[in-house]
């Protein structure tokens, strides 16, 4: 230990640098996604208003907010599935949709017909289709990548099963494998860990963390605040607008969360930290795109 104030003074930046390298983004990283004053609407109903957000490459970003807050809308805008009514979006250096084969989008589980007659391997192989192009059948490289992706999510032995025969957690694993097989630069994941067991959640987050470390950008919506706080590096809080954006442990604080969720966050007094519980009324059974309010928040 030293009393030299000049050395003490250096201590803080070093800590920050460690955090930056470990949890956040390399300073030189190019922004993967930039939204500038983006507003989006379904018909006359505004879903997101005036969102300005820059997401660097290598981010592992949780998008958090109540149902109907515009989380899925944000992903659809970035994926080019929906056009903003105003504002500018840049994805991987171009307008949304131009780098589509470098984007993997995972729909909400409710959006998928699980009775569809396809096997696990067929679903994961779909991740290769955009790169293959018309007329071309999957070749050896595609089969290898599909097998590797299945192994990555722990589903190597389930390739020939029909997707309807899988559990909820296995289904999410398979869809993540499809995203991995596409070898994307940008993952857009709508509720990847919702409704899955704790083990699956940990496994999937391990995979996503590894992808982010290798420079891929991961943007995922979630209802799970504990998962967001523990496993994601950054968080964006949305409720019709961008409430806050930053490092996950800084953004997930009591004041910002109650601003995001209105009356739907219960803060239990504890050992000075406070325990935050997502209101149980905010389940995932609301129909797609439906606004879902319980009180006078609007």
């Amino acid at each position: 230990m030293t009393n030299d104030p000049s050395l003490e003074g250096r201590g803080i930046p070093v800590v920050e640098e460690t955090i930056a390298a470990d949890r956040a983004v390399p300073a030189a990283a190019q922004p993967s996604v930039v939204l500038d004053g983006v507003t989006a609407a379904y018909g006359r109903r505004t879903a997101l208003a005036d969102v300005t957000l820059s997401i660097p490459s290598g981010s592992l970003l949780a998008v958090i907010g109540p149902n109907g807050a515009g989380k899925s809308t944000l992903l659809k805008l970035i994926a080019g599935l929906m056009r903003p009514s105003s504002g500018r979006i840049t994805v991987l250096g171009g307008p949304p949709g131009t780098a589509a084969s470098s984007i993997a989008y995972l729909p909400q589980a409710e959006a998928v017909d699980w009775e569809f007659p396809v096997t696990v391997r067929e679903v994961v192989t779909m991740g290769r289709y955009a790169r293959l192009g018309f007329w071309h059948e999957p070749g050896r490289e595609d089969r290898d990548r599909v097998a590797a992706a299945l192994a990555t999510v722990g589903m190597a032995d389930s390739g020939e099963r029909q997707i309807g025969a899988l559990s909820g957690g296995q289904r999410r694993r398979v869809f993540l494998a499809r995203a991995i097989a596409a070898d994307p630069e940008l993952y857009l994941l709508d509720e990847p860990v919702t409704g899955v067991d704790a083990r699956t959640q940990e496994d999937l987050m391990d995979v996503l963390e590894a992808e982010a470390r290798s420079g891929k950008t991961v943007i995922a919506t979630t209802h799970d605040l504990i998962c967001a706080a523990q496993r994601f590096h950054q968080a964006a809080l949305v409720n019709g607008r961008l409430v806050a954006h930053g490092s996950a442990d800084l953004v997930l604080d009591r004041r910002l969360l109650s601003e995001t969720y209105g009356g739907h966050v219960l803060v239990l007094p504890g050992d000075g930290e406070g325990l935050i519980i997502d209101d149980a009324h905010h389940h995932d059974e609301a129909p797609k795109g439906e606004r879902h309010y319980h009180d006078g928040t609007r």
Partner: protein
Amino acid sequence: MDPLGFILDPMAYGFMQRGLIAALLVGIVCAVMGTFVVLKGLAFIGDAVSHAAFPGLVIAYIVGAPLYIGGAIAAVATALAIGIVSRRGRLRFDTAVGVLFAGTFAFGVMLFSTIKGYVADLLGYLLGNVLGIGIGDLVQVAFLGAVVLIIVLAVRKELLFATFDPLGAAASGLPVAGLEYLLLALLGVTIVVSIQAVGIIMVVAMLVTPAATAQLLVVRFGRMMAVAVVLAAVSAVVGLYLSFYLNLASGASIVLVETLLFVIALILGPKTGLLSRAARGAAIAPSG
């Protein structure tokens, strides 16, 4: 009668040869398209498009144009209009289709009522008569059917992805809207090709029933399509022979064989089979 004679004797007639080839072609093309129709839930659209072909046929008859051309234009235009309504419309989709469907058919009936004299040709299109198909018509059926099959097989994997997960497919860069319009246009062509065989009213059965039966039997897309094709071909042959020996309407015979196979699959099938379900229920009941 010896079995060989039973099978070969009808083939001595030219109309049976042409009818069998036409029924097989129509059955196979409908089964392939029908796999997508069933998985995308387009049965009602298929019914609407086939009815909408009627005014096209009548107009072609009145102006002396080839009937196929008139029917094809009307069917494809209606299919694409339905596609646009489904993407842009504010009405409930099935409501919009119902309005379009009844309106176009009524328009055809009105035009039909203005024609003076005997119009058996046109009435034939309502119920179909595959045994009445001429060599020229057969060539057209074969040509258009081949075009539909080649296009569908060329974009088979993209159609599969877009049908299974439209959002994921669109995000990965596949032209999902374009593929949907293509599918609807091909559906229009398929329906017109099939109308002469089974008629406007029963075309939807040719599209839906073999694929629906196949879905009860297998759990893979490729196999579902293959099984649907086999079922359609078997139904075409059996239906046509029944029609020949029992002097029944040919289109109705084919459709009824398809329907019978569906009912058998429903009762005996491995997945949804009522028998296997009852067996499972019986197995579970004592312990529960």
